């Protein structure tokens, strides 16, 4: 008697690897559009971040006594690195990416036990770490590296290698998380209220967001990612915008910054988000509201990273408050046993 020895003997065939691979594939349209608008720097970011992530995963698995093949097997390291790369300004210097990766992989991910144990979204933790440590690297000006010419490639390469001394001024967006470069520094709220549906300076961002939205919809249709978090987050953002800036600002807000990337790909990160059914809805709403709050009244360029980290802090509490009532139990089972 060989074969299956544990029950049930049937398995649905779901695998963490296929889930993460699908998410990576659905990122492609967004990456392609980013490439068009932001130049080769996007690809270089992804390349450097993934190389760093692989190296750091190897170190982490040695330190933790795991097999490297096992820890790379589910491809969550690649996904996390790609998200981090997309969050940072295109053609960031390599050391900035490396620093973000070190924090993301070693501290935010493995120090807490890896995978589902990490309480904070590793990509966003890494992003915020370098944002706090080297704010000057987030000047949201892009060198001449945008465009897809040979010269642009050379420029992007020298940016990445950290050889560019003073970045030349540019107009396009450096990173999806840095939309406010296009806006007057303060007060942001008034600036948002004045904006119409299509404003020239944000065209790039709108296309990038639409591309990520497309990928996100594929994720929902294939049920790779469940709908509550993305939809609740977008709803939360729309509600907050409507309340404080009026209905006309809703669509520009939703298509700005890293909204779609965050809603479908970052906030849905399984380990750090809320997990119960109602908890997911609350988590999404909270993230959405926090994004708009940071955008309107905060100091940071885009609310997404801060908002997601904030929601990560709240996730265990949300899960506790929204824990499901077990079938056959009166209202809240564990409160009554605790009493």
């Amino acid at each position, binding site marked *: 008697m060989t074969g299956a020895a544990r029950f049930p003997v*049937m398995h*649905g065939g*779901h*695998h963490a690897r296929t889930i993460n691979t699908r998410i990576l594939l659905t990122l492609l349209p967004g990456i392609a559009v980013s490439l068009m608008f932001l130049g080769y720097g996007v690809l270089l970011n992804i390349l450097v971040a993934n190389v760093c992530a692989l190296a750091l995963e190897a170190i982490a698995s040695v330190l933790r006594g795991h097999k490297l093949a096992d820890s790379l097997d589910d491809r969550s390291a690649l996904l996390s690195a790609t998200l981090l790369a997309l969050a940072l300004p295109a053609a960031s210097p390599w050391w900035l990416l490396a620093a973000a990766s070190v924090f993301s992989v070693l501290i935010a991910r493995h120090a807490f036990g890896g995978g589902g144990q990490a309480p904070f979204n590793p990509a966003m933790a890494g992003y915020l770490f370098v944002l706090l440590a080297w704010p000057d690297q987030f000047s949201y000006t892009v060198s001449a590296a945008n465009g897809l010419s040979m010269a642009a490639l050379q420029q992007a390469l020298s940016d990445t290698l950290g050889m560019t001394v003073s970045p030349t001024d540019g107009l396009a967006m450096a990173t999806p998380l840095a939309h406010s470069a296009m806006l007057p520094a303060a007060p942001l709220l008034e600036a948002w209220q004045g904006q119409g549906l299509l404003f020239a300076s944000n065209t790039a961002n709108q296309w990038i967001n639409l591309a990520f939205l497309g990928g996100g919809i594929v994720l929902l249709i294939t049920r790779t990612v469940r709908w509550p978090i993305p939809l609740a987050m977008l709803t939360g953002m729309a509600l907050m915008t409507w309340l404080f800036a009026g209905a006309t600002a809703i669509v520009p807000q939703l298509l700005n910054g890293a909204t779609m990337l965050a809603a479908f790909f970052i906030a849905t990160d*399984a380990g750090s988000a809320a997990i119960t059914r109602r908890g997911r809805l609350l988590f999404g709403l909270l993230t959405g509201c926090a994004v708009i709050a940071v955008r309107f009244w905060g100091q940071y360029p885009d609310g997404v990273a801060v908002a997601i980290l904030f929601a990560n802090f709240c996730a265990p509490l949300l899960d506790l408050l929204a824990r*499901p009532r077990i*079938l*056959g*139990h009166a209202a809240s*089972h564990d409160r009554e046993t605790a009493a």
Partner: protein
Amino acid sequence: MKWRLFKSRMRGGITPETRKRVTLRSRVMPMPLPEKLILPLRHTAHHGAVPIVAAGDHVLKYQRIAEADSELGAAIHAPTSGRISAIEEHNIHDHEAGPCPCLVLIPDGDDKSVDLAPVADFRAQHPQFIYERLLESGLLGHGSGTPLAAKLAQSKSTPIDTLIINAVESEPYVCADEAMLREFADDVVQGAAILQFASAAERCIIACQSGKPGAIAALRNALVGSTTELEILAPGYPRGEEKLLVHQVTGREVPSGQSPAAVSCLVFNAGTARAACLAINQGQPAISRVVTLAGAALRTPKNFEALFGTPVSHLIELCGPDTALHSQTLTGGPFSGTLCSDLSVPVSARLNCVIAATDSEFPAPEAERDCIRCGECIDACPVRLQPQLLYQLSRERDAGLLASHGLDDCIECGACAYVCPSHIPLTDYFRAGRELVQERRQQAELSAHWQDRFQFHQYRLKKDRQQKPVAVKTNPHEKTAAGTENTTAKPALSREAAKADIAAAVARVKARRDNPGDKS
């Protein structure tokens, strides 16, 4: 006749491949007699039957060969005529307790039967008479394996308003009830009426699942002119689980740790209903059931009307097994069954399915990985537990939190393990967790017991000391008091009085601990 389509109150669950079609090609087949029949004398872990025949006796078909040993036991009748060759230990499929004493019957091939006493019109009888007939027939529930009469007896203490006949059979492979219903729907409907009569239930509902066109059509035919209702549930597993079924059909939630009778429902399996019909209308005691023989290692999988006691290997032989491919055998379905290493285990009332599987059919499980907290298990759990949390707590061996997060409510359906992308055998963890909780409860009980005894002992010593004449160091006017106390009859040390005293003392200590301020 009323029926509704796809009424669904169940949340969660899964929709695995059903893999029933091949097996359902054939009708329910009669079975040639095996060389020997093995009849276990234990039905559940602690109850069973006491033999009333001895080794060497010749018995006839339907003859009673063992009496119920208790309220939860059931009588056993000979499935065919033959000679009792021995009473010996034998492996059985459904409890892990190990071998169990069994009657071994060698059929003589004549199949000669005792005279049966059918009841012509059950409605003309008293319900008590019907109940006693069912009790005598030794019927065991086809789902739970507990005696039908014991379940029916619940209707005497609690009024039952809804009787549910469970023909859902949502587990993959298993199609014994579906095949049986296609041919014997009339019997099932009759049996339902008998059970309704005996339990005095107001409504009777037969629950079936969509995707069983043959069974549903047969049931609709049989239900013409009957007050019994038909409820068709949406596809998916584990919709047939007793408590979930009650919830889906009536909207009532069975309270944690109680049986459906707590919400005025009784649930019987469709096979049990048919057996009840045969017991009353034909006078036949329970001697057989329909069993599904499935699996990729069988050339002709089919359903058999199998006599109780038939070795599983006999049934497998009848389906043309491919011995080269046949690598594992399951008794029960792929979710509820167990791996079976001894193929001579007998068919019992509980055994609904035997799967002779190949290696590729149920591949060896993938390596278990870390939980990624994806929440798939939460979505799959029909009881609304948080399996990822219970898994964590099982690993941490935290019995208290396991219990408070509802491990006792887990129905071990395996839906969470089926969807887990990290291939964590969650059900196995929960079984281990259950054992832990059980162990801790026993320890707590024991410690309470010994604490009780210790306190009583202390109390008695104290009382004894008070009642003893204080011999020396007392002043003169207390001496008389002590003397009179000594002469009075020693008050009996009752445990009740002691308990009250101890409780008061404990309360005093607690009050002192809670308000450390007033240490007066």
